[in-house]
């Protein structure tokens, strides 16, 4: 297993480089120069040239790429003031990008982590129920709700929730993580979290419970379930011990694949609810043409996807004794 993980990590490097190349090319092939935003009347030519030199924009593209990517991987690099400069500096406020990113991580993880936990806790029992009582009223209701929920565009849902609960009924705050100028404590945070978490959870539960239901139905058709019944096991034991254990295997891998979203966040949800997370920052970066930040964001996203796939595969091997690497 350890050799497998190492092998996967090594395989990941060319992929990361591929991602880097693609995103670097996009940034540089875009019309206009990266520093166009600085070309205001107030900025003198000399200052512009300084900027160009500072960001290395006077060198050729391959050179720029190499220096950027080699710096990028040396995450530990600091300057003499203790700032982590490996990922460059943001165009918008000149701060080290690595630090900006790290600042935002807790907010995003809190939001996505809570949403994920809630989703799992709701979706698995619901899916099992629908599968076990197939064709019953409960199953039909669950299937319809899941299908509709899955079809709701995430931001339409978010806006509707915002409108109904925050504006109309005034039950929840409009945006942000904390009340401005208010207390920083837990209840306030929780209050702010309700709507965005609900928005994310409704969508995810719809998808996951369908998945769980399908997996459970697939498992219950198997021969070994018939064997379990022929042994005289009560139906509850057949379901919880024999069926569920097998049905959860694909769900566990799904869990692994959801990990990328933990960090890259839901750009749209964070935008609607003004949640100060990574997704929001990345989106702002694109608007502000903050290219170094944009590049960093793509790299993070890519790394998360690769990590998520790896975790999914490892979890798969852990829960399914048939898989050995």
């Amino acid at each position, binding site marked *: 297993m350890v050799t497998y993980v190492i092998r996967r990590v090594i395989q990941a490097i060319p992929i990361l480089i591929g991602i880097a190349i693609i995103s670097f090319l996009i940034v540089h092939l875009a019309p206009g120069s990266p520093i166009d935003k600085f070309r205001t009347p107030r900025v003198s030519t000399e200052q512009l040239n300084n900027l160009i030199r500072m960001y290395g924009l006077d060198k050729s593209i391959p050179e720029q790429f190499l220096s950027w990517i080699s710096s990028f991987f040396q995450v530990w690099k600091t300057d003499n003031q203790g700032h982590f400069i490996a990922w460059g500096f943001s165009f918008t406020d000149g701060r080290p990008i690595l630090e900006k990113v790290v600042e935002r991580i807790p907010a995003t993880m809190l939001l996505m982590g809570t949403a994920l936990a809630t989703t799992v806790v709701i979706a698995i029992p619901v899916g099992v129920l629908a599968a076990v009582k197939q064709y019953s009223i409960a199953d039909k209701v669950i299937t319809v709700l899941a299908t509709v929920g899955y079809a709701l565009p995430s931001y339409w849902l978010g806006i509707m929730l915002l409108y109904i609960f925050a504006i109309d009924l005034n039950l929840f705050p409009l945006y942000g993580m904390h009340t401005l100028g208010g207390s920083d404590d837990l209840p306030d945070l929780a209050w702010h979290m309700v709507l965005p978490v609900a928005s994310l959870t409704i969508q995810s539960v719809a998808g996951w419970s369908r998945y769980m239901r399908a997996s459970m139905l697939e498992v219950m058709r*198997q*021969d*070994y379930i*018939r*064997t*379990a*019944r*022929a*042994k*005289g*096991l*009560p139906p509850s034991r057949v379901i919880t011990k*024999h069926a569920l*254990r*097998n049905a959860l*295997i694909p769900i566990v891998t799904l869990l692994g694949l959801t990990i990328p979203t933990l960090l890259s966040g839901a750009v749209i949800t964070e935008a609607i609810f003004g949640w100060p997370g990574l997704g929001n920052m990345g989106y702002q970066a694109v608007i502000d043409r903050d290219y170094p930040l944009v590049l960093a964001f793509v790299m993070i996203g890519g790394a998360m996807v690769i990590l998520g796939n790896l975790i999914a595969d490892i979890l798969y091997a852990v*829960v*399914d*004794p*048939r898989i050995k690497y």
Partner: protein
Amino acid sequence: MSGHVRVKDLRAGALKEGANLLSVQDLRTYFPTQDGVVKAVDGVSFEIEAGRTLGIVGESGCGKSITALSIMRLLEKPGRIVAGSISLDGFDLVKAEESEMRQIRGNDISMIFQEPMTSLNPVYTCGDQIAEAVSLHEGKGHRSAWEHAVKMLHDVGIPDPARRATQYPHELSGGMRQRVMIAMALSTDPALLIADEPTTALDVTIQAQILELMKGLREQNKMAIMLITHDLGVIAEMAHEVVVMYAGKVVERSDVNTIFDHPHHPYTRGLLSSIPRLGEKRKRLEVIKGVVPNPLNLPKGCLFQRRCPYAMPICSTPPPFQEVAPGQVSLCWLTPDFKPPAVGADAPAQIAEEAAAALSVAK
């Protein structure tokens, strides 16, 4: 499960050899479908005596597996037992409550299936799965159930049973998995083992080993076996009595020697003559012409008439169960010496029906 009143508690050898263990009377299991009612089992009767082996033989789709599932009450929807009785030492399985059936399954009656590759749960060890049956029905604790499981693995001839018990099904070959299934089925010492095509999915050499194993175990345990197969060779090897099924009905019933030496029903005769024999000089293999009837389009009268070389006009009336020899019944109009019945081959239907009523042997 301890503390519950046991419904039965038939251990192998509990009844004297030859005593009536399982009695199936006029069993009818139907499947209502969108296109009509499929009569998978339509009036099947037979008996299994304690310590004896009954072989049920027939083509795919003739209803033999459904019969077994009906006995175990493991039918999938929409199948239902619509009539008949199944009596286990006097206890009616058709009318039993589900909770009572659960006490019987895996305990008094055990069943093994055709596909050893997929019949074991891939995420639990073999030992766990055997021990589960034991601890469920006999209330044993984990350690003692595990020890019993290892002993069972040993009894079914698996080398190094203690290690094998800790392995997962995918680490075992097909033959070994079937042995594990047998071990699991026999771990509670059932009075009756139902084996549904236990060797069909296995290589011929492994097949022979499994059959030897089963013969040895039934000697040792004195249990009854209901052996379902389409392979006449297996029947010859294992069965004491034989039931031949066709299209949901029993067409012939006798002891194994009579079936092979003096078959009566044309279908049985067709099955036997289609087995190629070594040393026989023949240009072409014998076949039974035609195909099994579509269950939604059954002929009136005898179900075999469209394929039968002896078919007569009277065959469009349902044939009676004739006792063509002591202990041998056949669902056919032909007399024991293969002549048309005395009432005349071209008799009009009504007379034929009366003759059928007169000839019917209630069995």
